[in-house]
């Protein structure tokens, strides 16, 4: 696609000094943005302008800028990671926007993801869920040892697909219930499909689900919004797996 220049765009961005202060929307204008620029490059340009004008730059999370770390969570024009499926914000490009358009940028909205500043939210709730059971306690040995344990290709594939979750939180942001079910389901499915993870599968499902409730995430209504917005294409079939693990764990108890 040939490069074009967006002569003018408007940005309506959520500004919030810190976790305690009340936030508000502010509007900024940017000129001459290349359609080849990534969304985050556009944000960098905006911040350069703001700094020159003596205005506090917009705080937003980012790290790898290649779709693998999951930090760049922005809610753009009503969608997690903006107007495209299966990508992170850093993979979004300005060619998805039109000249003169107003782009509304908000932080992830969930009781369990409080705003730290502007567009940055505190996603440590995910770490706490992970610490509640998203691991295996046995010593799995070296790669050589691991290779002696055979895994059928289907289980390996299912586990690998689920393991691609990067903990970005788009599932929570997109869900009408701010539910963390897809995230938890990805972790549970990943480990429950591997021989090393099987012995603790039931305990894991119970503990992670319990933590998810305690931290104030909502329940699942099976709308499928998470699956569409997930940059790693985690399927909601993993949620069926989580439900199955959780129910059978409760039957066993």
């Amino acid at each position: 696609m040939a490069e074009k220049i967006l002569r003018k765009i408007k940005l309506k961005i959520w500004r919030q000094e810190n976790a305690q202060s009340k936030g508000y929307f502010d509007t900024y204008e940017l000129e001459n943005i290349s359609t080849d620029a990534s969304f985050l490059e556009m944000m960098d340009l905006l911040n350069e302008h703001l700094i020159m004008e003596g205005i506090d730059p917009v705080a937003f999370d980012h790290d790898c800028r290649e779709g693998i770390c999951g930090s760049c969570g922005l809610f753009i024009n009503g969608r997690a990671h903006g107007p495209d499926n299966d990508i992170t914000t850093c993979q979004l490009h300005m060619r998805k926007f039109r000249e003169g358009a107003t782009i509304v940028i908000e932080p992830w909205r969930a009781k369990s993801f409080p705003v730290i500043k502007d567009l940055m939210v505190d996603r440590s709730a995910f770490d706490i869920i992970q610490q509640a059971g998203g691991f295996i306690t046995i010593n799995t040995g070296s790669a050589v040892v691991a290779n002696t344990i055979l895994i059928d290709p289907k289980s390996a594939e299912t586990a690998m697909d689920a393991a691609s979750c990067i903990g970005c939180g788009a599932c929570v942001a997109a869900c009408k219930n701010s539910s963390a079910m897809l995230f938890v389901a990805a972790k549970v499915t990943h480990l429950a499909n591997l021989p090393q993870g099987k012995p603790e599968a039931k305990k894991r499902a119970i503990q992670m689900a319990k933590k998810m409730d305690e931290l104030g995430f909502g329940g699942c209504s099976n709308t499928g919004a998470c699956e569409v917005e997930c940059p790693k294409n985690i399927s909601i079939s993993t949620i069926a797996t989580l439900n199955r693990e959780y129910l059978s764990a409760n039957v066993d108890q």
Partner: protein
Amino acid sequence: MSGFLSSAIGKKFLMSISGFFLMLFLIVHLIINLLLLADTTGATFNIAAHFMRTNPLVKIIEPLLAIGFLVHICYSFIISITNWRARPIKYEVNNPRENSTWISRNMIYLGILILLFLIMHVINFFWKLRFGEIPEIMVNGELMENTYSLVSGLFINYWWYDVLYILGAIFLGLHLTHGFWSAFQTIGLDNTRWKPRLKGIGIVYTIIITGGFSIIPIYFLIKSYL
């Protein structure tokens, strides 16, 4: 067990199981109702209705059905309130049309419409049959309540009841286009291979339910103009 029923997955499990039970009930209910169209004297329907009123098995299932409805309705509100609380600050701009269906996001509102219909429906028939005065009729030498005249009378004399019953069937159908598959997903009986199949079966089921329940008021509506 108390931990299970207070967990998000546990509560949703109750929605699913009660939903399954209600979906089974709808099939039985529809089969009996379609007997209204079997003959113009209403004898077939009256016999079936009489059988349902006097059958001891139905006596056991009736309170179970009431519990099924109560569980489904109570938990639908409990779940919805928890879910609303999980996002205290709403998005300024939200575009969920791009990632999910309106029905899947608004099951509670369709449910409330069904609940309103249900209240009207219970007053129209169940209440009258149970506590009111119903004309009686001789069918095959047995005296029984003339349920057919109760139903046909309502549908022939008041056109707006026909409309309300068709609307009820439509709301129920919309609820089920999402609910049928969703109930399987909730109890873990779903995967990438079965999802499209279950959704397909759900659409067939919904067409049977909505179509079947609508045919009855449509039939009487046409009859009232003949």
